[in-house]
């Protein structure tokens, strides 16, 4: 009995001192010595977001003495599941994953056995997440829509009626739903008359966006701005305007993601606003959480943790002409 109590006291003392250690070292080092993390995601052609995220993760891991190894299922769900299945036998103690299909999260979790999973970029349903075990690390899509709405309302503060062309991403995609919803809500809440002259899914795709905008213009529709769910579609909108000799200075175009192209477009005066989804910090935060959970710890003290303790929200940042060059 006495031994038990003693050991409990010792454990408590150790854990307290451990906490003190980690908190004193702060975010720079969580002491991830020797922790191996497997990161499975499919690379996207022409979209470096995921790679940037992976780099951020690796950078953070190496700074605390941990390792993040990347594997690429190349858009194959089966490959991804296989990779996760073998992770434990290969000495990995945590998994980072951009799921091929977010709805298969349960299957991925089953494949991982008792390893914790940090999902990135593609959000699984909250019901499949679990505190300190299956976490989604990203930026809150809703915030991107809010920042766009804020910029628009600021820009058109003198107008009571705004005619909007809205280019949405893939139908049903978390980013599409989240970004659109808050954008619409906030615009509506302003009390101004918001006319969605054109609202359609351009599937995050530049060409589709270009075609759509061209079509809208060809039909003689009048609009005050083009707001897009991402920078790629914003590029399409820019191209469409250029196709129709519309002066981009008179046609504000908004995107999300603050891609190289997007930031350059802002600097070039082709776009007015984008939202930086901090890929590297997301990776770093995901890696930090993965290391902590790999050690059997908790992420409940993470500042970015949402109230439901299932999400790590890495903040979005507004990017306009004043700061675009910082994100190049």
């Amino acid at each position, binding site marked *: 009995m006495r031994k038990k109590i003693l050991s409990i006291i010792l454990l408590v003392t150790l854990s307290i001192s451990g906490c003190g250690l980690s908190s004193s070292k702060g975010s720079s080092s969580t002491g991830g010595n020797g922790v191996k993390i497997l990161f499975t995601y499919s690379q996207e052609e022409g979209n470096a977001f995921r790679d940037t995220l992976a780099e951020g993760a690796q950078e953070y891991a190496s700074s605390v003495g941990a390792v993040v190894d990347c594997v690429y299922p190349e858009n194959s769900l089966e490959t991804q599941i296989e990779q996760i299945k073998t992770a434990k036998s290969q000495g990995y103690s945590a998994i980072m994953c951009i799921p091929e299909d977010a709805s298969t999260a349960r299957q991925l979790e089953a494949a991982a056995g008792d390893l914790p999973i940090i999902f990135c970029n593609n959000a699984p349903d909250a019901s499949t997440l679990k505190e300190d075990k299956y976490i989604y690390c990203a930026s809150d899509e809703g915030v991107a829509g809010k920042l766009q709405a804020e910029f628009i309302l600021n820009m058109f503060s003198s107008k009571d009626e705004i005619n909007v062309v809205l280019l949405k991403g893939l*139908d049903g995609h978390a980013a599409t739903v989240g970004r659109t919803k808050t954008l619409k809500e906030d615009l*509506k809440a302003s009390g101004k008359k918001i006319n969605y002259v054109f609202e*359609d*899914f351009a599937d995050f795709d530049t060409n589709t966006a270009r075609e759509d905008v061209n*079509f809208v213009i060809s*039909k003689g529709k009048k609009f005050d701005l083009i707001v897009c769910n991402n920078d790629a579609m914003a590029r399409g909108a820019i191209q469409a305007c250029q196709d129709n000799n519309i002066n981009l200075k008179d046609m504000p175009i908004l995107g999300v993601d603050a891609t190289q192209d997007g930031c350059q477009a802002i600097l070039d005066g082709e776009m007015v606003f984008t939202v930086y989804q901090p890929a590297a910090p997301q990776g770093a935060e995901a890696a930090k959480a993965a290391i902590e959970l790999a050690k059997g710890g908790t992420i409940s003290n993470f500042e970015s943790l949402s109230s439901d303790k299932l999400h790590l929200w890495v903040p979005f940042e507004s990017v306009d002409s004043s700061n675009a060059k910082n994100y190049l």
Partner: protein
Amino acid sequence: MAGVEKTKRRGSIKFNLLVIIIPIVAFMMIALVAISYHISSKSLRKEAEELLKTSIRSQKNDIEAWMKDNLDSFKIVKNTIESTNTDEEGLKSILDGSVGFNSTFADGFYIGTSDGRLITGAGSTKSESNVLTSNWYQEGSTRINMAYGEPYENSNGQKVISATGMLRNVDEGISVIGADVTLDRISVIVNSNVEMENAETFLVQSTTGTIISNRDSTKVGTNISDYSSDKFYKGVAEAISASDLYTKEINGNMTAFCEVNGTDWILVSFVPSNIILRDVKTLGTILAILAIAGTLLLIVLIERTVHFLIKPVNTLSGVINTMTDGDFTMEVEVKGNNEITSMSEGIRDFAGTMHDLISKIGNIAVNLNNQADESNVVSREMYDASKLQETSMQGLNETVDGLASSINEIANSATTLAMVVTDTRTNGESVSEQMSETVTVANKGQKDMEKVSDAMGNIISSINELQTAINDVGVASNEITEIVKLIGSIAEETNLLSLNASIEAARAGETGKGFAVVANEIGKLAQTSTNSVQQITELVYGIDNLVKDAEKKAEESVKSIDESSEYINNAVDTFSLIYQNIQQTNEMVADMIEKVGEVDAVATDVAAISEEQAASADIILSTSEEIVKQSAKLTNNSEKVAKESEMLASTSVELDRQVHQFKI
């Protein structure tokens, strides 16, 4: 019997155990039931909530799938139209083919053109008075991909929503292709897919508040804000407008919300809480019954178990009670292998040991009693003896005391005697001298007495002469008496004569006075003569008496002188005898003096010896007094011993009695 009563009065271990265990068990059962009820009801609620959520999610998926399927169908048709690029005839045939193709959109596709025309398939009931201002046309003109718009009432009075989108292949103006889906149809889908029993679902457009589907068809197409008097609908409306889409309790209904992707529709599913609570209540009832039954069963089980376990203790208790009553004859049964067994063994051994011990004590008590009796007798005897001794010693003491005082007296007497003897000797010697003188005197006295005797003869003759003289006197006095008597008679006559003369003088009167005085004087002389005669008579009488007396006396004197003479003669004789005696006495005194000398010596010796004896007697006295004290003490002690031995005797009797209380 007493033991049993005692046991009853004290209660039993079984009772105590049951009193402790049963409330604890009952409390634990109640606590267990309460906790399990709490947990179960919580999980039941949670389960119900989950079920509701699952149900609504599944409905949502069904709706989404249904709508997506329809949209996909619509898109295929739209793509076909766009890609075939046919003329209006071809277009019409396609639209004709779509009418009745699917019951969901029975009217098929229709197209509104920017010049206000509505192209429908043959048999379509779709009509529109003003295409360009129609809701569906305006909605459709904001998108290329067909999507559902707001619900509205079409010209047939049906509540429908249109899926619309712009046709790409039209060069001039905007042509919108659409297909109508009736809300009734959606309602059927929504309501027929409710997975949870008693749950109800309706669909609301979040942007406008229009109710798209409801089990109550009169509500379909109306605005949720029209039902603000209904607390439930009001609550739902508030939750939707606040985008607060967490599952919550609204007006007694557990209400879940779910957004339908691709639309701004919100699926609202609710189940009355009391239905969930009914299950919880049923659970509570079952648990309560189980708890009561379980408690009763446990009580019975515990009672039986305790009874079984306690039984040996009761037996043992009976044995101990028997032993308490002093009966060590019972048998102790030793069964099993536990603490009670070892207790039984202990009791059995104890009973054996006690049996032996009490037997021994009994014997000892008897012996002790005998010994006590003996010692009592002995101490009695000793007491008597010492009492006797004390008395004897007391007597002895007194005797010695008397002896001592006697000896002292003897000593004193002897001393006095010695002194007296000494004095006596001295006196004896002077007596001897005086005796010699006495002898001489006595001798002289004898001679003197002889002279007295002679004088006495003379006296006798004198007396005789005297007696003769006296007789002469007597004769003279008688002659005087005769003369006196004659004078007296003359005086008497004279007196009578004076008396007569006085009477005669009185008769003569004045002349007689001088005579009267002579008569009186003669009377007086006569009186005086009478008196003198009286006095002489008396004197003569006196002398006569005196003579007679003297005569008598003379005779007596003669007599006495005679006697004296005799006496003197006797005295002479006596004197001679005295002389002889004194002579003898003188000799005896001498002899005595000699003897007294011897007595003196002896008395002196006796005084010394008796003084010594007195001292010894004192010592003896003190010693005997000490002995008396000691023997008194001895008496007391022996009395005490006697008493104690009596007590011992009674104690040993008591002991014996006590020992005999045990049955061995």
